[in-house]
């Protein structure tokens, strides 16, 4: 195995990992603030992938141009979902939250099956089949673009939470729920905003993911699980942790596939998860409780 192949594939792992990270970022943001684990996360990404595929198929809209409208629509849907359905469950036991969101996930999968059928759909852009040459390295143009979008979205989200008043208010809610209520913050609205932001993140991830993989209605559960693995490895509630977790999973899969067995590569994501749970249960960048 030559070094060039190794570098090539590790870079591909980093790029894929960044998109994984963006997907998991939405989950992490929602949990970090609202303290609800979104078990319908992968299904929401699957819907975003279908919406992007439909916009491409019907209107010829390039997924890079579909990003913004899809993200805005998902923000609205996330906001409405939180206000209308999830909010009453915030103070209820965790198992009822779990059942609620699993039920939402199952309904979404079946709706997708009813609307689109079981067939896989893909968006093939010929210009993305041409790799980017970086000296002797060949980088997948689609992955590179998707990773750039993921990095830009994550940076925008960090900036929002750090520099805007609303972002700071959301962080205040996350840090001290009672204190936020005492100082008069509209916590319910801020929770809904957070859920909307998390949904917009997963929508952007979906728009990019359709460039990398085919979508089927049953894709969701596997990606919900993957998002969990990533946020647990990176640290539940930590935004940089989600990105780091995504990159680590992407690279570990690439290396395991390269040096051990490609058919067993996903096993190494779970091995990494177990290792992190044993050595650092709060995740690599998570805060210990």
């Amino acid at each position: 195995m030559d070094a060039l192949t190794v570098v090539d594939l590790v870079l591909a792992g980093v790029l894929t990992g960044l998109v994984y990270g963006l997907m998991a970022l939405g989950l992490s943001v929602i949990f970090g603030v609202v303290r609800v684990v979104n078990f319908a996360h992968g299904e929401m990404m699957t819907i975003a992938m279908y919406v992007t595929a439909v916009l491409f198929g019907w209107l010829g809209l390039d997924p890079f141009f579909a990003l913004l409208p899809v993200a805005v629509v998902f923000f609205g849907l996330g906001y409405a979902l939180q206000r209308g359905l999830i909010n009453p469950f915030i103070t209820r036991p965790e198992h009822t939250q779990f059942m609620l969101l699993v039920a939402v996930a199952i309904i979404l999968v079946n709706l997708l099956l009813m609307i689109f059928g079981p067939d896989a759909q893909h968006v093939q852009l010929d210009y993305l089949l041409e790799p980017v040459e970086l000296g002797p390295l060949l980088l997948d143009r689609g992955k590179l673009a998707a990773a750039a979008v993921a990095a830009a979205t994550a940076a925008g989200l960090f900036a929002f939470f750090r520099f805007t008043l609303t972002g700071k208010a959301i962080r205040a809610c996350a840090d001290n729920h009672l204190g936020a209520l005492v100082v008069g913050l509209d916590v319910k609205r801020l929770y809904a905003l957070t859920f909307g932001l998390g949904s917009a993140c997963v929508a952007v991830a979906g728009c990019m993911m359709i460039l990398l993989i085919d979508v089927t209605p049953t894709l969701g559960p596997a990606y919900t699980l993957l998002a969990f693995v990533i946020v647990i490895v990176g640290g539940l509630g930590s935004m940089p942790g989600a990105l780091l977790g995504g990159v680590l999973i992407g690279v570990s899969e690439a290396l395991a596939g390269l040096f051990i067995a490609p058919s067993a590569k996903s096993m190494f994501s779970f091995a990494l998860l177990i290792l992190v749970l044993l050595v650092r249960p709060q995740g690599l960048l998570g805060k210990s409780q």
Partner: protein
Amino acid sequence: MGPVVDRRRFNLALAGASAATLAPAYVHAQPARLKVGVLLPRSGVQGFIGQSCQKGADLAPGVLKSMLGVDIELMNADTETNVDTARTRAERLIQEGAHVLVGPFDSGAASAIAQVAEQRAVPFLINIAAAPQITEQGYKFVFRNFPTAVDLIRNGLALIGDLFRATGAVPRTAVFMHVNDTFGQATVKAIGAILPKLDFLPFKIVETIAYDPAAKDLTVEVGKAKSTNADFLLLVSRLADAIILRREMVKQRWEPMGIISPGSPGMYENQFYQALGKYSEYCISNVPWYDPAKAVTKLVEPAFKKQNPKDELMFHALNVGYTFEALMVVADAYKRAGTTEAKALTEAIRSTELTSRMMLGGRIKFDAKGQVQGNASACIQNLNLRPMVVLPQAAAQAKPVFPTPGSRKA
């Protein structure tokens, strides 16, 4: 005062009751139609192939009625490309009254359904599934009109030799990539057993790479294969993974002399052309194929066109052909048995001898294990976005192209 029941009335009532009791047996012996449980993966990873096979099932009742004069009723079930689902759907079909099972385009699912068929003593005819062990277990109710992986690979490798002779190409190395499922493992064993004995083949396998049949991304696998610098890719795939793999080869600018399947699905399927367009060109599949000139094909082709006006049989040839033939075998057996009773139907299937068929090969006749011998393969190359027979020369529609244009020479 109520009616008086005298001896004559009592005897009449007794006769009536006896007739009513015996009627089901009489009706059973004179069935109106054969209920065939058709199990196919119409959704999931193999969904497109399952739907392709379904086209062969859907046209069968009409064609078989005109061919054999028998009525068959299809009871369709989706295995969802899942072995456990295949097992439960087979159970349910039997509970709902299926007299015989047909399907399921997958070795794993076929193994599971075979167990159910044996336990419930219901005949099961495999349309497509190649794992040899399915007909090596001494099953009494399981039959297969499709080559085993060993036969498939033997035929496929022989055609690779013919291809090299016809084109004058002498590739020295191959990288072998295969799906890691029951079928893939069976082909690995077959290639390991057969290839070393074929000294007329000039190449050796430098690396074997197994991958998940449900893989969404094959970047690493293709990168690893590319790094071997092998002259050509020997591929055992399904459909979805074949598309992903070919796309990834384009992205990584890997242009070996060619891609050759020694007997697996994927590269001759309609969806392969639709998804990849020009990138589907020149891929080669050595697979069992249909004969357009046969009398049965001439009955099937118009029926296919009628049911699928925008489609062409050649894009579904293997799937439609073997699914139709499986139904033809059970319809023929039913006609000869004159009953839907499982044992009689099983024996009638066992004694099948059909010389008129749609697919290339000898007659359909089951051996003691329930396996049809003598199914032949053809070398199919994608040319102008269509599957074209390029070998054997007697049936060739075009000349083989190897090495493929743009690839480096060996």
